[in-house]
C-alpha cells in the first residue's frame, strides 16, 4: 500500500500545484511514519526529523496493511484476526472507528478520490469493496486463492489484485468490478506496483524469487527482474515490497530473509546494488520528499532508513515485534 501512499502524495501535490496552493519546495521538515507491528498488536509512530519513536498505539489483533485516507486525516490499519480495518485519527493518534471488511483483511487499495476502498481478504478468496464515506460494504469480487497484493492503476481504471496460491495478477475493471484479465506469475505473488507513467506493472513473487514486469495493456509479462546475491541460496531471496521513485528510474525491492533491499534500474531491469537492512525485510515507504525510504524488518523488529540519493542505510529504529507495513503522513 506504500504505493498508494505515494501515488496519493504525488496526486495531492499535483492538485495543489494546479489549484495554486503550491507550497514552496518541500523543506526538510519532519514527516510522521506509522508502522504496523504484526505480533505486538500496535502501531509505532516515528518522527522522521529526530528518527525517534514518539508514540505506540494499541490496535486490534494482527495489524498488517496500513495506509492513509486520501485526506490525510486517518490511518487505516487492517487487523486481520479481528476481521476489520481500524481507523486511527492522525491528530489524536488513537483508534476512532472501524470498517466492515471481509474476514482476515491484509492489504488494501483506494480509488483516486479516496471514496472507495478495495480490501484483499485472505481467508475467503474475495476482494471486498467498501464505501469509505459511509463506511459500509458495497460488495465482493471473487478472485484467486489467498488474495494479497493490491494496487490501482494511475488512471484509476484498473484494480490489481494478486493471489498467492493461484499465482496470478488479476486485472479488475473498477467501474464494472469484473475481472478482465489474469496474468500468471511466479509462485506466491505478494505485492503489485505500477510505474507512475502506467507503462508497466511490477509484481513480486516471494517463493518464485522474481519480480514480473507486466504490460498492463496487453496483459503480458514483458520481462523479469532476477536477483543473485553471492553466498546466499536462491531460496533465501524472497521479494515482497516494491517502491519506485517518482521519476520511474529506480525501484527498490525488499528481499525478505535475504535481509537486503535490491536497488533496480527500472529501464534495464537490472539490480545495481544490494543494501543490507534488518532481518526479513518486507514493506517500505518513501518520505513524501523522497529523500528517505523506510523499510520494515520483521525478525529484527526494526525499521531501516535509507538515504535514497546516496543509496545507503543511515539509521535503524527499534519498533514493535514483527513490523509489517508502513505508511508516511504528508
Amino acid at each position, binding site marked *: 500500500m506504500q504505493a498508494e501512499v505515494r501515488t496519493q502524495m504525488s496526486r495531492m501535490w499535483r492538485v495543489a500545484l494546479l489549484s495554486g496552493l503550491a507550497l514552496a519546495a518541500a523543506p526538510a521538515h519532519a514527516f510522521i511514519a506509522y508502522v504496523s507491528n504484526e505480533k505486538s498488536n500496535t502501531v509505532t509512530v516515528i518522527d522522521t526529523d529526530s528518527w525517534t519513536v514518539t508514540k505506540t498505539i494499541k490496535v486490534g489483533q494482527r495489524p498488517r496493511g496500513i495506509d492513509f485516507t486520501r485526506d490525510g486525516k486517518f490511518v487505516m490499519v487492517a487487523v486481520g484476526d479481528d476481521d476489520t480495518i481500524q481507523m486511527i485519527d492522525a491528530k489524536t493518534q488513537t483508534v476512532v472507528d472501524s470498517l466492515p471488511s471481509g474476514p482476515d483483511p491484509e492489504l488494501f487499495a483506494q480509488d483516486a478520490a479516496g471514496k472507495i476502498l478495495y480490501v484483499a481478504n485472505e481467508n475467503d478468496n474475495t476482494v471486498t469493496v467498501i464505501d469509505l464515506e459511509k463506511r459500509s460494504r458495497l460488495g465482493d469480487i471473487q478472485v484467486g486463492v489467498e488474495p494479497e497484493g493490491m494496487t490501482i492503476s494511475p488512471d484509476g481504471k484498473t484494480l490489481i489484485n494478486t493471489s498467492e496460491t493461484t*499465482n496470478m495478477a488479476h486485472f479488475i475493471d473498477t467501474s464494472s468490478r469484473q475481472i478482465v484479465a489474469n496474468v500468471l506469475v511466479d509462485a506466491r505473488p505478494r505485492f503489485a506496483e505500477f510505474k507512475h507513467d502506467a507503462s508497466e506493472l511490477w509484481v513480486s513473487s516471494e517463493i518464485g524469487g522474481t519480480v514480473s514486469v507486466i504490460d498492463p495493456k496487453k496483459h503480458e509479462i514483458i520481462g523479469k527482474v532476477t536477483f543473485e546475491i553471492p553466498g546466499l541460496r536462491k531460496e533465501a531471496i524472497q521479494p515482497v515490497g516494491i517502491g519506485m521513485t517518482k521519476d520511474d528510474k529506480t525501484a527498490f525491492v525488499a528481499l525478505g530473509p535475504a535481509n537486503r533491499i535490491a536497488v533496480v534500474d527500472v529501464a534495464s531491469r537490472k539490480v545495481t546494488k544490494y543494501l543490507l537492512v534488518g532481518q526479513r525485510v518486507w514493506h517500505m515507504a518513501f518520505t513524501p520528499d523522497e529523500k528517505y525510504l523506510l523499510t520494515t524488518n520483521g525478525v529484527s523488529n526494526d525499521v531501516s532508513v535509507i538515504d535514497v540519493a546516496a543509496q545507503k542505510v543511515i539509521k535503524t529504529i527499534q519498533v514493535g515485534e514483527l513490523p509489517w507495513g508502513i505508511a508516511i503522513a504528508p
Partner: protein
Amino acid sequence: MIRWLAGLIGLGLAATSALAAEPASIGVGYLGIAGTRSTLSLVEQPAENDGIAGARLAIEDNNTTGKFLGQRFVLEERRIREGEDVVQAATALAEKNGFIIADLPADALLKVSDALRDRGTLLFNAGAIDERLREADCRANVIHTAPTRAMLADALGQYLVWKKWSRWLLVVGSHDEDKLFADALRRTATRFGAKIVQERTFEDKGGARRTDSGVTLIQRQMPVFTQQAPAYDVLVAADESEVFGAYLPYRTWDPRPVVGSAGLVPRSWDPAQDQWGAIQMQNRFMKLNSRRMSALDMQAWTAARMIGEATSRTNSGDVKNVTDFIKGPDFSVAAFKGTRLTLRDWNLQLRQPILLVDGRMVVSVSPQEGFLHQVSELDTLGYDRPESKCKLK
C-alpha cells in the same frame, strides 16, 4: 497464458452462463487402504479421510485457479479393502485419471508403479516414508511428497545437535518399521556427531491400546524400563508401530526429554503450523473438513497442488507435458513452509523443510542454521545425490 474471463461473480451478479469454452477436465485419482491404524494417544487417532481431505482442499484450490484458465480438476477416491487386488484397483482408477495420489505401503506402491508404467500414469507417493522407494527401488513414474525416514531423522538430529543434546539413549520397538527408523537415527547420529550411549529394545508383547486403569500400570513400567542407563541428554524413541513411544514422556527414570516417535516429533506438517501464511490454509482446511490438518493431509495436498501448479504453468492437462514439467528444472511449488519446494532430480523426492512439533506447538523447523550445503540447505536432510543408489527407470 492469459485468458479473458467471462463468468466471474462481480458484486453478487452471478454470470455463470458465458464461460468461453468447456473447461478441460483433469482427473486425479486417490488410492489408499481402507481403515485406520490405532495410535496410543486418542488425540492422534487419524480420521477416516486422513490424506484424501488434503487432496480435496488442493483440488478446490486448483479449481479456483482453474476457472481462470479453463481447467477443471476432478478427484476420484478408491480405498482398497483387505483381500482386494491393489493393481486391479489402480488400473481401474488409471482409466480416467492420468495422475494418482497414493497412500500405500511400499510393496503395494511398487506393484502399482510397475503395472502402470507403460500407461504413462504419474504416481505421487504421499504416504510411504521408506528410504528404499527413493533408493534401490526408485521408479521414474513415482514422485514422493512424503518425506523419508532419513529426512525426518536428520531434521530431528540437527536440532538435537544444535541444542547440544548429543548423548542419545535410543529405544527401539520390535517391529520392522521401528528398526528402519532406528537405522535412520543411527545414520543421523554418525553424520552430525551425536553419540548413542546405549540402545534398548522395547518388545511388543501384544496388548490393547485402550484400557481402563492403564495409566497406573504404565507409570510403574516406564521408569523401570528406563533405569540404569548411562549418562544421556535425551531419550530417542523409534516406535512407528505405536506400542510404547507416547508412554515415555514424563515417565523416564532420569528426568530427560523424549524425542523421535513421541515428545518432540519430526513431521512434514502439523495442525499447529501457522507461519508463512499457513494459517490461511489451516483455516481453509478446517472449513472444508471440520477437523485439523495432518501430515498425511499435507502430503496429499502438496501432490495435488503440484499437479495444479504444473497444469497452470504449462496451460495443459496432458499427462506427459505435466510430468515433463514437474521433473524439469523450472518446477517448484509453494507449500507454506517458508521456501519453495523442488524435486531432487536423481530420485524424484520433494525437498522440504521438516517441522519439529510437540503436539501443541511447532518447536523448530529444520534444516537448522549452520547446516550448509553447496546446492540447497534442504539437501542436508536425507540421502544426498552422491550417496544415492537410485537409477530412475
